């Protein structure tokens, strides 16, 4: 408990494992958190397609809690022991972070996509930190019945910038609606980022989550989908790059309560230098989730023997009639592959970039904004050039 006096616990694993593996949670020191929310330049594009309001973060939280179907608390189970954490609208980073960001960002932007409305263009929200800075922001996206929308949240700064950023995005997706939430992290090499996403997904609703994590020194991120609706779909597609001594800490949780729900988590990444990555992926079938399926797949390219790669796939079930799967592929550039690529003129550095880009661009290309795609492409190239 001593560590909690100095910071917050985030990204808890829903089903705890041995403490010595150091994957049950991540710990973020207070000095890694932003103190103000004034230092990023915010620009929005195509916001006029939706209704935008501002609420106090406390009000926004109470309002969003009303959509979580009365769920009072979430358990963290270790063996037969469960500890409970009060959180009506459960998030991946967890209660500590929600409490903290409510204070850091006293106002929350609430975007409503009206019933039946299908947006032509993505709503693009950009936070540019320039030479560095500290900022926190909260949003709630409310996709009403039968609507469809894409929201793209971009975080960026200059390449060598230092800073702290904290973001929380809550998503409410009503019956038959589809929400595509896409987040990119093109922050500088000195940034600490905490980026939380959470959704309540209704009947026949779809939550499509795309995450591109390329920048930052330490990134704690996650997405928690409460699939309370029957036939709901939660789909995650993530691409990340971690290099130097950077940390990438990820927590995805699909809680499948409705009948015939479907979750698909796909995480692709590349690790080089002395980078560390922890990926927690949990598919949690609750009682009543009859006929549900869940699948999580990870594909990691290890480019250096000094990297640390931890993966914790978890499938929990209270229901018999479900199908949960997980799989992981570990790749490296073997001497045979380097010789093969070399025989076409591709040297080791180019091979590493090419293989990383192949993995990441398959995720980046899902983003329906050419500028973001081009900037991500450029960021990957620069990451390799800077290391040469």
């Amino acid at each position: 408990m001593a560590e909690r006096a100095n910071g917050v616990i985030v990204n808890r694993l829903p089903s705890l494992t041995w403490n010595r593996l150091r994957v049950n949670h991540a710990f973020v020191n207070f000095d890694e958190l932003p103190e103000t929310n004034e230092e990023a330049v915010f620009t929005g594009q195509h916001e006029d397609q939706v209704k935008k309001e501002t609420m106090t973060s406390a009000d926004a939280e109470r309002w969003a809690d009303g959509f979580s179907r009365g769920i009072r608390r979430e358990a963290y189970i270790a063996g037969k022991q469960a500890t409970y954490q009060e959180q009506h609208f459960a998030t991946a980073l967890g209660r500590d972070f929600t409490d903290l960001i409510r204070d850091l960002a006293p106002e929350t932007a609430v975007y409503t996509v009206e019933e039946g409305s299908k947006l032509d263009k993505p709503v693009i929200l950009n936070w540019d930190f320039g030479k560095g800075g500290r900022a926190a922001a909260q949003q709630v996206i409310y996709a009403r019945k039968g609507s469809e929308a894409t929201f793209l949240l971009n975080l960026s700064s200059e390449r060598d910038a230092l800073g702290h950023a904290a973001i929380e995005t809550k998503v409410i997706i009503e019956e038959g609606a589809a929400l595509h939430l896409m987040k990119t992290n093109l922050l500088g090499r000195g940034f600490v980022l905490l980026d939380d996403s959470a959704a309540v997904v209704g009947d026949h609703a779809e939550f499509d989550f795309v995450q591109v994590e390329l920048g930052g020194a330490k990134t704690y991120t996650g997405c928690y989908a409460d699939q309370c609706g029957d036939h709901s779909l939660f789909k995650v597609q993530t691409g990340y790059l971690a290099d130097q001594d950077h940390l990438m800490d990820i927590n995805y949780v699909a809680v499948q309560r409705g009948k015939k729900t479907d979750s698909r988590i796909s995480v692709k990444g590349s690790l080089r230098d002395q980078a560390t990555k922890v990926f927690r992926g949990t598919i949690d079938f609750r009682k009543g989730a009859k006929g549900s399926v869940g699948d999580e797949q990870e594909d990691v390219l290890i480019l250096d023997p000094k990297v640390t790669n931890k993966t914790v796939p978890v499938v929990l079930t209270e229901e018999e009639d479900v199908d949960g799967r997980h799989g992981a592929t570990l790749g490296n550039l073997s001497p045979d592959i380097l010789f093969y690529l070399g025989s076409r003129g591709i040297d080791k550095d180019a091979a590493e970039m090419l293989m990383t880009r192949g993995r990441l661009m398959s995720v980046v290309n899902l983003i329906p904004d050419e500028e973001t795609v081009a900037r991500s492409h450029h960021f990957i190239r620069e990451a390799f050039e800077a290391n040469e």
Partner: protein
Amino acid sequence: MSDSLLQVKDLSVAIEEGQILHDVNLTIRPGETHVLMGPNGAGKSTLGNTLMGNPVYHVTGGQIFFDGQDITRETTDKRAKAGMFMSFQNPLEVPGLSLESFIRNSLRQQTGKPVRIMQFKKQLEETMALLNMDPSYADRDLNVGFSGGEKKKAEILQMLMLAPKFAILDETDSGLDVDAVRTVSKGIEEYHKRSDGALLIITHNAKILESLAVDYTHVLVKGSLVTTGGADLVQKINEEGFEQYIEEAAKANE
């Protein structure tokens, strides 16, 4: 020998387990087609791999010159950039890298210039059609889930797109059915036609040579080149096998 493209002088090669090639000498001029034959384990693939700079094989003696430059100690990618190419006997599967992206990046690395996308795509499409390849293979991960025949066609596709000065075909015909061998032969003919490149074809099978004008045939036995002849030597070996050469090599070693 000033007109030679590739010159191998007294080349000896070893791997950790021991010596494989002994004092091999070979000269290939621009546009020539050479065939390298020999029984299993003779060292044919070792020679191909050594020419291409596979670090598994250690040159213990001799030199390799390409286009007038000593490349004996040069890295594989630099040899490729100088105009060398090898079609692999067992092409590797590379998940996460599409066939098209692989070829486009190879071209970019070799020329040092950006590739003109439209022109590249058109040429790729035409070349795939020539090799009876389904265009969808361009978007698929390199060699992943390709049949043996498609892998070999993909190698020939790369050769045609990269247009090297010199290509080593390491048993490109092995494991292929008659139709696939014909398609691969068509690709090799096209390579000659397009770029007048030189070839070193390592093979057990005369089928792939039927439509090609072979200039020289070499026989490698137990790591030594025991004889060199013209195109007729292929026919002779086809009929008589390697026994005569194996016996000669054994006598020479006594």
